């Protein structure tokens, strides 16, 4: 065992090198603690401050230079940045983390005095007939292609789903020459009721951002169709058409070569749930969120969460939450904590949380009950909504039993993609989700097998 895993230690491990983890690591290192920042991908930045490849940066310029500067500061502050390092397990309230080198499979065990999970979020996909066709992708994937590689996801694109994220994606697609055939928003967020507008007006910067996107779209003649949704995608080897139901109930067929569809984001909470922290249902009622205090401390002593992992609130909240959690850890661990003013950060966090709550009200999810029986829900194992409903209807299966009976959630994504949908279709009323288990990602076995003891 000891020879299998390389041992290391640090005062604090920050898991996730996105905006939240970067801000936290910076505060922690400047506060005098030894900090290890771990990220599964080969570059820091997470999704928002994603790095362009060198040649592309040379050709098209730096992507979000604020991220470049933040990463530079983090490195300059002496943070031990371990990219390409997957945290696949944890125990002992997060004071032991198990890691794997994503390239070599080499295993590591890290001992810490506190751990901050800043593991971000996934895009939320919801099944509909045809959603597994090639050419049906998430908005985030289309954005990645457009911003990192300057590659259009298709030439005639339909963008659909719900959430404020659809707007920047649409603008980025236009920039790389995509023709947007339709921009379909399930809800009516852009002609909201007076009460909602009142809440939004307290966030002028966020409103200006949305207005800027809407203006760009208008300039390109792209109209946001509100109250509309994609019913189905068609094609033999690739999506070629989609049916769109308008707000008035009319259905029209649109030809397309790429359908980007997403329903906001879901927190990536495996690590805190694995460590047994107390959770509560998120505003959508489909996810279990770690219960945290104002600074991100969980019910597990020494374990903190920040960023979207603590509830979807976007990049600005991520930075603020990361700093707040870092200050809380400093108060706990730093030998001589300098007096710090966190009141302003806390005020900012509360305001951003209110804005996130507003977004939750503006962009509610569609009912899972609408998913047709013959639509595949678990694409790894090929399990349909009907099969899941049927297993649940026996009355003796809980969520785990439904998984066992159907294999839904047993594939290589470990239920990350479909778990919330299976829970909604099969749950027995109480909020349930698939248990978080080690390894939180499929783990290369090279090292465990090579590190064998000989009898």
């Amino acid at each position: 065992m000891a020879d299998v895993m390389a041992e290391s230690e640090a005062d604090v491990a920050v898991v996730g090198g996105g905006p939240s983890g970067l801000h936290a690591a910076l505060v922690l290192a400047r506060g005098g603690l030894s900090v290890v920042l771990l990220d599964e991908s080969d570059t820091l930045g997470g999704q928002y401050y994603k790095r362009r490849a060198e040649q592309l940066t040379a050709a098209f310029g730096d992507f979000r230079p604020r991220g470049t500067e933040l990463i530079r500061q983090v490195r300059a502050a002496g943070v031990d940045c371990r990219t390409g390092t997957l945290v696949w397990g944890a125990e002992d309230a997060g004071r032991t983390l198990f890691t794997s080198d994503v390239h070599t499979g080499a295993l590591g065990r890290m001992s810490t005095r506190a751990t901050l999970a800043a593991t971000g979020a996934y895009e939320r996909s919801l099944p509909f007939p045809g959603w597994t066709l090639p050419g049906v992708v998430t908005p985030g994937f289309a954005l990645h292609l457009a911003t990192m590689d300057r590659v259009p996801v298709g030439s005639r694109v339909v963008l659909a789903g719900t959430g404020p994220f659809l707007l920047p994606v649409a603008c980025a697609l236009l920039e790389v020459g995509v023709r947007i055939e339709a921009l379909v928003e399930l809800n009516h967020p852009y002609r909201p009721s007076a009460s909602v507008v009142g809440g939004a007006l307290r966030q002028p910067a966020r409103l200006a951002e949305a207005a800027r996107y809407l203006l760009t779209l208008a300039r390109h003649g792209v109209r946001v169709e509100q109250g509309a949704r994609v019913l189905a995608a068609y094609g033999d080897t690739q999506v070629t058409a989609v049916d769109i139901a308008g707000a008035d109930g009319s259905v029209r067929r649109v030809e397309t070569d790429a359908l980007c569809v997403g329903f906001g984001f879901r927190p990536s909470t495996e690590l805190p749930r694995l460590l047994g922290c107390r959770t509560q249902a998120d505003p959508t009622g489909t996810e279990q969120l770690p219960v945290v205090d104002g600074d991100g401390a969980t019910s597990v002593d020494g374990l903190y969460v920040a960023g979207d992992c603590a509830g979807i609130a976007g990049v600005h909240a991520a930075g603020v939450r990361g700093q707040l959690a870092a200050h809380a850890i400093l108060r706990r661990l730093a030998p001589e904590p300098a007096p710090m003013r966190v009141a302003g950060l806390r005020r900012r966090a509360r305001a951003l949380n209110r804005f996130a709550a507003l977004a939750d009200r503006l962009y509610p999810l569609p009912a899972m009950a609408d998913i047709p029986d013959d639509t595949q829900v678990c694409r790894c194992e090929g399990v349909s909504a009907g099969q899941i409903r049927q297993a649940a209807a026996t009355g003796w299966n809980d969520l785990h039993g439904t998984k066992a009976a159907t294999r839904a959630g047993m594939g290589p994504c470990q239920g990350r993609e479909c778990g919330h949908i299976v829970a909604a279709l099969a749950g027995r009323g109480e909020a349930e989700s698939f248990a978080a288990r080690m390894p939180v990602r499929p783990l290369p076995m090279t090292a465990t097998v090579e590190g064998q003891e000989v009898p």
Partner: protein
Amino acid sequence: MTQPDVVVIGAGILGASTAFHLAERGYRVVVLERGAPNREGSGTTAGNLHIQAIHTRRPGQEVPVDSARLLPLQRRASDHWSQIEERLDTDVELRRGGGFMVAETAAQEEELREKHEWERRAGIPTEVLTGDEARKQLPLLSDRVRAASWCPLDGYANPLLITPAYLAAARRLGAELHAFTPVTGIRRVGDDYKVLSGDRSWTAPVVVNTAGPWITEISALAGIHISMSPVAIQMHVTVRVPPVMHHLVQHIGEGMSVKQVSAGNLLIGGGWPAAELDMAGRSTISVPSMAGNLAQAGRILPFLGDLRLLRMWAGPLAATPDEMPVIGEVPGHRGFFVAGGTYAFTLAPVWGDTLGRQIAGEPPADPVDDLGPGRLLYDATAPVSP
């Protein structure tokens, strides 16, 4: 049905098999399950059908199994499993691809030969192969395999399918299943037992306690004190790969079992201890056990090193203090039966059949008197020794 002939407590594989065998005999059966059926040890086990002698020890296991004693029962189990899909009229991914038990040292090879002799006497076909002969059959075996015993009857059934299949068949024969119905009391009423779950109750002359790790707890409700030594063990499963191996591979040294299941995943186990047995929730896996089990499996089957580990889980094993199964009527408590203990998965059809015969007053197909619960009874009023 509030006055059935038999109340079965626990809807794991033993309760399900017993319910089926009793229903098939025409008994009116009610099965009570505290949570979801097949949720605990029966649904988390490896699904191995052990027909060659069980001679490996779980890492950390102190008392060895009396392997030779169990062989006639395994021989019987083999026959039951051969007919099971037909009998239950369903697919349980049954596979009888045969199994190797490998040895790496001269001492282990000697154990293989000793075991082979017992198997021969019990009428179980096995042969001891040299390492090269074994590798000829299964080239994935490493050069470290010095010898291996081969049994064509070893196999696998999907643990997620067999218990539900038994329950479905029992229900077709009129049995009732009440999930999420924890037993809260058992009272003697005349010659009957009144089994309570909150304000609901069922009264029957016969109770079968197949509650696995909770056998002690359920028996105590009836004033019966049975010692069990439940532990939690863990399993490891890789991502799916195309079919490469249709055998069960075990190690005669420390616990190891590897096979590829119908879906394509490789399942690696062998009874390595989990970090903690949690009777109230899910037990936590142990990373040192993972490392130990995978290193050992990779030493015998090096191709595993190219795969990815997809999941791990831990589940309870209802072991007895002497590591032998327990089955039969509790002495002094007419109509109160218990079945449990190790290797319950392989032996489940035999135990269901045995209980069916015992409850009907017939002798079992193979003698099991020495496996009765009398040996596990203790005096709950005696002071606990340190």
